[in-house]
């Protein structure tokens, strides 16, 4: 009887050890996946921020008025004379699409980021997808005194504005959607 108890106890202990090691391996793998995806998000948000910074820093370049043609919490449209396009007056618009466009992903809040651009003379243009996986995009506008402008924003009063962008994975990893964010307050030199 004693021998049987020894064998059962020994097997139980081995099983517990194997289980612990397996759990540890799974936890490590999960954490590694989470951090890898988060690092990818970090890289993605950095790339998007660079593209947006180039456009948004040019606001008002070599034009006399109407620097902002649209300004809301979730959409911004700016005008400037584009030095890389024969100095033609150009508009650029950023906005996030609806969540329904990415309904195939596990993340219920991720959306596509759109960038539309064209010359003022040509008018409208078809928006192009600039990035996938935007979970938050918010624009805040400030007047000359640094006060927040409330909606509807008086576009001619804008002297600086802040972009808050969060990009998140479409997949649930370790019970979280790995995400990275970018916050930047612009003081475009051409309107100050």
């Amino acid at each position, binding site marked *: 009887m004693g021998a049987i108890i020894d064998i059962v106890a020994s097997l139980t202990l081995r099983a517990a050890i194997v289980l612990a*090691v397996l759990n*540890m391996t799974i936890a490590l793998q999960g954490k590694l996946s989470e951090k890898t995806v*988060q690092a990818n998000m*970090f890289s993605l948000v950095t790339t998007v921020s660079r593209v947006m910074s180039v456009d948004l820093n040019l606001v008002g370049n070599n034009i006399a008025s109407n620097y902002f043609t649209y300004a809301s919490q979730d959409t911004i449209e700016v005008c400037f004379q584009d030095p890389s396009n024969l100095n033609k007056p150009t508009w650029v618009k950023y906005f996030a699409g609806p969540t329904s466009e990415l309904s195939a992903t596990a993340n219920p809040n991720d959306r596509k980021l759109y960038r539309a651009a064209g010359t003022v003379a040509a008018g409208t243009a078809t928006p192009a997808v600039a990035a996938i996986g935007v979970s938050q995009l918010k624009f805040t506008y400030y007047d000359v*005194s*640094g006060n927040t402008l409330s909606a509807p924003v008086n576009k001619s009063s804008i002297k600086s504005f802040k972009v808050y962008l969060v990009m998140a994975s479409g997949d649930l990893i370790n019970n979280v959607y790995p995400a*990275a964010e970018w916050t930047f*307050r*612009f*003081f475009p030199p051409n309107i100050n």
Partner: protein
Amino acid sequence: MGLGQTMLTMAFFIVLCIMFINAYRVLNNADQQLLTATAYKTATDLGQSLMTEIMTKKFDQNFNPPYGSIGSSSNIYTGFTLASKLGPEAGESFTLPDQSPFQSITKYNDVDDYNHYYRLTDSTNGLGRFRDSVIVYYVQMTNPPTSYNSQWWTKRIEVWVTNDVWLTNKWVKQYSIVGASTR
């Protein structure tokens, strides 16, 4: 169980414990490194943002452009703010550290007002508060990192950003040199 078996079992458990401790360290290090990287990125963005705010100000409140060309025979630069007086003038001071909404935007009217200015910025990504500090001094283009003790056509702006938790004793430093002819 003989002594040999007991020793083997103990050795096995010790190896197992070491393995668990190392695994925990790996997990913890991964978190720390990613948060530190995020802190560096956030500090860089905050510094750049503050720098762009400063760059919208005049070069010197005592003069309006055009100042003439840098290095010209004109000695107009002698009218710029004294090197020893770089900082906010009367009526421009407020309690530091500055906090949102930042008073520097309305109170300061030239680049050198930001000398010894600092502000606290709350991050939205759970990294706590960042401290953004600025120093401004005259430099000569022939020796830009070295402070010049008199007025000159060019000022160097240094923005230093740190975070008490994630950038302990570390700073993200950015600088720009502004010339009198720009604004």
